[in-house]
């Protein structure tokens, strides 16, 4: 289902709540690890209130911080895979449109795809007035809604930690399909071998086995991300360390029209 901005009447007005309330509601909305593969249900449940949704996908609820982190990510894109005003861009797992709100102004057209229609409802409200943005609800894991050879850049940020490994690879494969020849792919996650990644891992390990939440973060290894991109067919695959303690795997779809990374 594709959202246009006319769908805004479906979006509930954001209801402000205290940070403690938001955290409490988030904890109550996350489900258990057995639900992890039911991404649509898990993330729709966390999308019922804007503050909870914001906390779930961005880690904070205030707009200035959200814009700041989005700006930082756009700089990361520029430094790793490059960004051009003529780029047709797809974000996998765009959530509430944290990045799209700013990136929409820096590319030809930005498409935001997410498996949670609830998250996209909030994104539609935040992207109001940006005519070159479009939101698409994914029916399941994958990018079935999109044609092949269409995008200059496909990226997926702060998403892989919430997916099982098979689904991470599925998105890499699908990104490769929808990229035009020469198009660039970007995927990030916490690295297991960093201090932060190890903290994420040990925090997860501390959960009682029957109370691990469905969205619990799971780190990646550098090899894992590199292998995904290579197996999917990307060339010029690189795994780079980012200043925010993430690692990013980048690559280019082979074929005519390939251009040098800036």
């Amino acid at each position, binding site marked *: 289902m594709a959202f246009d901005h006319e769908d805004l009447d479906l979006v509930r007005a954001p209801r402000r709540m205290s940070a403690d309330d938001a955290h409490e509601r988030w904890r109550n909305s996350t489900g258990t690890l057995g639900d992890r593969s039911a991404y649509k249900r898990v993330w729709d449940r966390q999308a019922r209130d804007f503050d909870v949704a914001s906390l779930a996908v961005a880690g904070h609820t205030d707009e200035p911080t959200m814009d700041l982190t989005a700006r930082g990510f756009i700089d990361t894109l520029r430094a790793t895979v490059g960004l051009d005003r003529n780029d047709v861009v797809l974000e996998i797992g765009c959530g509430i449109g944290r990045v799209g709100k700013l990136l929409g102004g820096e590319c030809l057209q930005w498409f935001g795809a997410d498996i949670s229609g609830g998250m996209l409802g909030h994104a539609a409200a935040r992207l109001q007035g940006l005519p070159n943005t479009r939101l698409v609800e994914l*029916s399941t894991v994958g990018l079935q809604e999109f044609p092949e*050879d269409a995008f200059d850049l496909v990226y997926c940020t702060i998403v892989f930690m919430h997916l099982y490994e098979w689904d991470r690879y599925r998105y890499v494969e699908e990104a490769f399909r929808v990229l035009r020849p020469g198009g660039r792919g970007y995927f990030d996650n916490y690295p297991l071998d960093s201090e932060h990644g190890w903290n994420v891992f040990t925090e997860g390990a501390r959960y009682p086995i029957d109370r691990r939440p469905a969205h619990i973060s799971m780190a990646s290894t550098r090899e894992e991300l590199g292998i995904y991109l290579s197996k999917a067919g990307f060339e010029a695959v690189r795994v780079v360390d980012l200043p925010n303690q993430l690692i990013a795997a980048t690559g280019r779809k082979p074929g005519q029209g390939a251009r040098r990374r800036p």
Partner: protein
Amino acid sequence: MNPAPDDPNLRIAALTAEIDDVKRREAAFRAKMVNEFLDRGERNSYLHVLREELAGLLRRQQEAFADMELFTRMLEAEGQEKAALEVELEGIRRSWLWRLCAPLRASGSSPRAGSPVPPGGSPVKGGVFTYYLHTSPFRIYREPTFTLRGWAWPQDGRAVSAIRVDLDGRLFVGRHGLEEPEVIERHGPQPANPRPGFEVTFETPPGRHLLSLEAQLEPSEWRSIMKTSIWCVPPGA
């Protein structure tokens, strides 16, 4: 393209701008392509896959009905051949040679009787109809009644004024004049039969029967749309 200026730097700048413009137009084309792809509606989506599967199942169902019809025709042909052979056998039994050899066959068993062939079919003449049956009659009937639903019109353009089923001479009158908007959309307006749908319920007592689906055409002539043998078994059999 503008005439190239003499200054090489200006020429480079002009060419770069031109290349950028081409890139922008190419990217705009791809963005438009994606938007149109999305506008066409859920293509490649899970819902689309389900719709494709549904269409495939409907096709398969129609193929199965066609297979069943063929099977029924073959069975009818076999039945007719069997009847002809029985007539021939009866002729042999009446011959003097058969009677002469009777003592030799005294210890032998007589051929088993086959299932009774139903009495002659409906006397109504066949007609040329365009029709489709939503509930195929080519099946094993396991319920005490069955409702045949479909649509039909005669190709001579006359109006259908009634629908019935003749089952071994028993008549079951149905409803006609039911809406079939998708059929009209596909085949075009049918002035004499704007609502070509019908349904007729008939009893299905165990055994083999001859079924004739019939339409009354104006002014009052009955014509058969299709005829077939049917087999009915007791419920649960």
